[in-house]
């Protein structure tokens, strides 16, 4: 009995940080409709800033002042992000905002590294609450009780703010009806900024308050992101009570999960999410998303054009040039080009669902890494030859996409984005936690091609054949009725249903097909590198594909190819610098803000270079 009480209290105290971060994210989303992917970074900053403040401000007062000040400091940083990064792009398609906040993650990561160094910091104990309390024969750190109190305090405070104060009621009205904001005579800029400050400050306080329990490290940002998304998805976007209940559920589940199924704590959380979503796709306390409530969709895309003769010629020339590379290029160039082709295939498969289908997936790494792991596991345990592994890897990835897609295509917009991200984290956590099979963090090593393909040039030709084959298939599919139906569902789901097209089925099929191709890219990748680690399933990998698609231009069929080339070469070059994330992040933010028309300008330039005609945005057709 005492044991259970202590377990429940531990779960409650674990829920505190989760709730603080999730409620902040929810408040920001509710009013601005921006999913702030950098919210985990604000949490991390709260921990680091709080740590530094605590070393300066001593004693009981100093401890709590530090937490409060950390919250204020992070709130101000949130304000800077809102004004500097997001304000210029509120009217852009939501993908822009998501990508921009990802840029912020990269920048904050490197700035944190720059300021605080790479070492984990161990948090100071809270003065006055260093000890433990005895509950029956069980012990509980007394600070856990403080955290529980804190989360109820914040819940109560937020309830008061949104129900009893004029400002809060206005904000709530704005959440329910964005048009209301103007009608009520509220300055929208102020409202958005204020909400961003509040939401960020909550994340900062969460980060600082958990210092005595968890300390501060550079992985905190991504580590909290997945659970926070799960909490927000389960609770319902924009709902504070939802965030509270869901944070409790997840934390209790973790605490008891550790007792019962120590190997699957991470997976458990996602299973609960899946179950909730089957019955309530909008979360426990969420309301169905009304159409058009999330950002603009950007300018309409131009109709697809058949490949022109010039384009065929350019493509043939490119294929010949690539085939001829081993004649004049050395090992380095061949390896680099193989990387480029794999990245292009990966990104083109994402573009298939994202560009054509309007399904903004933030978890495309699941099928890439999934395919790679499938191949590696087959080689490791079934001693399968490369040929067989390469055949089965895409199938396994397709199967994975089938399961993930079943849940995800029922949602749209940011809900879809978050859910795909959460599922990718499931796959990641399986690879990471199931050490006996996947090798965990150590990965799987020694996955080499068959003898005939083991030379650099031979493998280059294999990548060239399968990679370009996959890309060509994806491009071809865009022109089939299936590809058209996918675009139709994006343009007007209403029209599709009214002419007998099952939009969900089309989207689900596309998701599976894209997963298959992404799995092929993963298989090519694993045999190229000879090993696979959970990093290939990480959020950062999903973002690679997103950035490539984004860089190349979402509305162009050839965008992912142009983007893949530029991005891979750029990364190859940037990664020689210590703070490459900083550069990359700033670059992403710069592109998003300076080219708000979806890189049509750059895309046009690239397309002209390639001499490609399809997808060319036509000016008022004759």
């Amino acid at each position, binding site marked *: 009995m005492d044991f259970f009480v202590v377990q429940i209290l531990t779960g409650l105290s674990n829920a505190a940080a989760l709730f603080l971060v999730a409620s902040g994210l929810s408040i920001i989303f509710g009013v601005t409709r921006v999913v702030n992917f950098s919210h985990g970074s604000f949490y991390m900053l709260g921990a680091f800033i709080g740590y530094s403040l605590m070393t300066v401000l001593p004693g009981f007062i100093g401890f709590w002042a530090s937490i409060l000040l950390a919250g204020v400091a992070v709130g101000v940083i949130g304000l800077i992000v809102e004004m500097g990064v997001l304000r210029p792009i509120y009217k852009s398609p939501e993908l822009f905002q998501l990508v921009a906040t990802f840029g912020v993650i990269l920048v904050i990561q490197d700035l944190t590294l720059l300021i605080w160094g790479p070492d984990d910091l161990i948090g100071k104990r809270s003065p006055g609450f260093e000890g433990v309390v005895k509950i029956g024969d069980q012990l509980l750190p007394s600070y856990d009780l403080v955290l529980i109190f804190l989360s109820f305090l914040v819940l109560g405070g937020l309830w008061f703010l949104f129900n009893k104060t004029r400002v809060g009621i206005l904000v709530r009205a704005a959440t329910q009806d964005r048009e209301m904001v103007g009608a009520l005579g509220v300055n929208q800029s102020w409202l958005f900024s204020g909400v961003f400050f509040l939401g960020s400050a909550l994340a900062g306080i969460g980060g600082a308050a958990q210092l005595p329990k968890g300390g501060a490290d550079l992985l905190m940002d991504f580590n909290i992101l997945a659970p926070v998304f799960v909490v927000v998805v389960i609770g319902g976007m924009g709902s504070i009570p939802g965030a509270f209940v869901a944070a409790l559920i997840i934390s209790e589940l973790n605490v008891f999960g550790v007792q019962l199924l120590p190997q699957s704590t991470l997976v458990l959380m996602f299973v609960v999410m899946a179950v909730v979503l089957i019955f309530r796709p909008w979360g426990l306390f969420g309301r169905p998303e009304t159409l058009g409530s999330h950002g603009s969709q950007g300018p309409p895309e131009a109709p697809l054009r058949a490949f022109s003769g010039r384009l065929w010629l350019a493509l043939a020339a490119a294929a010949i040039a690539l085939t001829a590379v081993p004649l004049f290029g050395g090992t380095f160039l061949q390896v680099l080009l193989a990387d480029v082709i794999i990245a292009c295939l990966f990104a083109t498969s994402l573009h298939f669902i994202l560009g054509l289908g309007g399904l903004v997936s933030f978890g495309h790494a699941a099928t890439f890494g999934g395919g790679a792991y499938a191949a590696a596991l087959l080689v490791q345990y079934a001693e399968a030859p490369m040929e067989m592994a390469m055949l089965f890897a895409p199938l396994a990835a397709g199967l994975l996409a089938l399961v993930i897609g079943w849940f995800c295509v029922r949602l749209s917009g940011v809900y879809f984005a978050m859910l795909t991200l959460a599922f990718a984290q499931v796959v990641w956590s399986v690879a990471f936690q199931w050490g006996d099979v996947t090798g965990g963090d150590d990965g799987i090593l020694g996955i080499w091609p068959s003898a005939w393909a083991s030379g650099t040039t031979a493998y280059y030709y294999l990548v060239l054949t399968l990679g370009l084959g996959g890309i060509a298939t994806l491009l071809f599919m865009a*022109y089939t*009725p299936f590809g058209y*139906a996918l675009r*139709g569902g994006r*343009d007007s789901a209403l029209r599709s249903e*009214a*002419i*007998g*097209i099952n939009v969900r089925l089309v989207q689900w099929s596309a998701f599976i097909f894209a997963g298959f191709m992404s799995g092929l890219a993963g298989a090519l990748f694993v045999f190229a590198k000879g090993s696979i680690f959970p990093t290939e399933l990480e959020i950062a990998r999903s973002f690679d594909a997103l950035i490539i698609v984004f860089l190349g231009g979402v509305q162009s069929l050839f965008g992912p190819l142009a983007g893949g080339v530029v991005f891979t070469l750029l990364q190859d070059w940037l990664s020689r610098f210590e703070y490459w994330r900083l550069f990359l992040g700033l670059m992403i933010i710069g592109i998003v803000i300076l080219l708000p028309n979806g890189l049509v300008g750059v895309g046009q330039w690239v397309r002209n270079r390639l001499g490609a005609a399809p997808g060319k945005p036509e000016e008022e057709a004759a």
Partner: protein
Amino acid sequence: MSFLEVRGLTKSFGGVNAVNAVSLDLKEGELLALIGPNGAGKTTCFNMLYGQLKPDEGSVKLNGRELIGQTPRKIWRMGVGRTFQITATYASMTVMENVQMALISHHRGIFSVWPPASRRHRPEAHALLELVGMESQAERAASVLAYGDLKRLELAIALAHSPRLLLMDEPTAGMAPKERVGLMQLTADIVKERKIGVLFTEHDMDVVFAHAHRVLVLNRGEILADGSVDEVRANPRVQEVYLGGGSTFGEQEDADTGQSADGSVDKEGLANA
């Protein structure tokens, strides 16, 4: 013989009774107008007939088969076409491709891969575009069409699977007066030729009185009158709805669709036409 039988259709949003116990019959070869001021519940009725909205009560039978509870997809397969008050077309496709998609779906080719979509059913699509007078714009992007042309395109799409029943929600909104008459004349011809039933809503009384075989008047969710054009026009309660009361729908329509008034709506239409 009526092949569409609607009985006791009811829907409320929150506390508001949008549609209350609406019943109607439609015969083959009949052009039935559903009129009423803004917010009368016309679109809500359409949405319930087409499976987009679940009614609180009521039944809709098409040739004896219940439509309530079916998805729009199924209802379309049963031979019902629809055009929308706010047009729904594929902006990233050409006019031709928009029609081709409906034809591809009708021939159950959505999941086939060869030949490419833009090469399918071209003669059929062309004939449909010709029918609605859009053949000269076949290769334009739907995103650049004028609003009236989008309405015409929607009609072509809705006709692609040779429906038995056509639901048209304000088919002529956004068109010039001449165009309106032309489009309704075309619809009337199709009704006559193919013996299909058409249920349409319309704010332009000239159009209604010139072409409808029968008129249903809806007000605040309830059927106010049901009869021939002359009967409805003479009905004092109908006149009251349109002439008395604060809200004449002519003005509101402007706000709704962003179209300029062409003066053919409302009072004079009722009184003089």
